């Protein structure tokens, strides 16, 4: 539980390890390493995603150098993979290159929607869990699929709010609540967030963390939006823990009616 003034002691624990922030920021979409560094710092994130791609001999500046400078733990993803086989190989290469057995498992169905392919996703998750990975699957906002992923040993479940990069926010808050109610592993709202109120809503619905990239890196002022997201995640978390008032159909006065002046 949190104390009344701060988030002290209310840590996010994934696969037995405490992560210092409930805002997980991806590195995708930043226009430069300089902007990325500023945004990561402003976000206060302690864990950030990277993609695995063929080495580019002409590339200048490595995202890994930025993460090392900022002291942020790396979470490789399998973005761009369409089959379980591709995702498993990419995860194994990430483990070898980066020395981590954590992976954000992403197996997409097509390039237009970037929605997860649930059948390939489950297949890849099974193989990677068996191989000793801490698997954090990017999944549809489907409570049944999220539960299956947890049952087969995933370290967290990461339902989408809406399609990657769309900024449409959380299209099915009811499903997110159903996932949260049933989950025994952290629920991380991943994808589709557009602005700070979306992140706060995710936390108010009971998600344990939020993962976002585009909403920050493609904002007009990435560092400012990163700070907004940091505060929104903290505010939403506190509101969740505080317990909101029930919604009512009619007004309920907060000032007493007794003792009114009479005219």
């Amino acid at each position: 539980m949190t104390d009344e003034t701060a988030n002290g002691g209310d840590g996010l624990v994934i696969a037995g390890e405490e992560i210092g922030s409930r805002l997980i920021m991806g590195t995708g979409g930043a226009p430069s390493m300089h902007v990325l560094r500023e945004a990561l710092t402003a976000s206060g994130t302690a864990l950030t995603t990277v993609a695995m791609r063929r080495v580019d001999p002409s590339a200048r500046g490595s995202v890994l150098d930025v993460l090392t400078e900022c002291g942020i733990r790396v979470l490789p993803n399998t973005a761009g993979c369409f089959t379980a086989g591709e995702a498993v190989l990419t995860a194994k290469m990430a483990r070898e290159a980066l020395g981590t057995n954590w992976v954000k498992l992403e197996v997409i169905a097509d390039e237009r929607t970037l929605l997860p392919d649930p059948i390939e996703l489950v297949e890849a998750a099974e193989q990677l869990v068996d191989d000793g990975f801490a698997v954090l699957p990017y999944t549809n906002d489907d409570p049944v699929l999220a539960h299956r992923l947890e049952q087969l040993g995933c370290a967290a479940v990461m339902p989408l709010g809406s399609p990657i990069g769309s900024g449409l926010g959380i299209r099915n808050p009811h499903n997110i609540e159903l996932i949260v109610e049933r989950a025994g592993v952290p629920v991380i709202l991943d994808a589709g967030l557009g602005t700070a109120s979306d992140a706060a809503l995710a936390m108010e619905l009971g998600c344990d963390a939020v993962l976002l990239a585009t909403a920050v890196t493609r904002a007009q002022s990435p560092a400012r939006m990163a700070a907004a997201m940091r505060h929104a995640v903290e505010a939403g978390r506190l509101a969740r823990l505080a317990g909101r008032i029930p919604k009512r159909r009619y007004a309920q006065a907060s000032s007493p009616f007794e003792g009114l002046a009479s005219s």
Partner: protein
Amino acid sequence: MKIIVNGEPRELPDGASVAQAVAAVTTAASGVAAALNDEVVRRSAWEATELREADRLEVLTAVQGG
């Protein structure tokens, strides 16, 4: 002999190792992984793993993403 490195054909001397092929595409000292015909080759085995004609080698690193 000709092998395929990251999708591009490359001419390497017979008996060339994974380490030699990796060095042809990157000078990075860390943060790189190699897979030979879809199987990861641990960095510690790069020197000792010989390539054969028509092998496919993938050499990946971390980039901005997700």
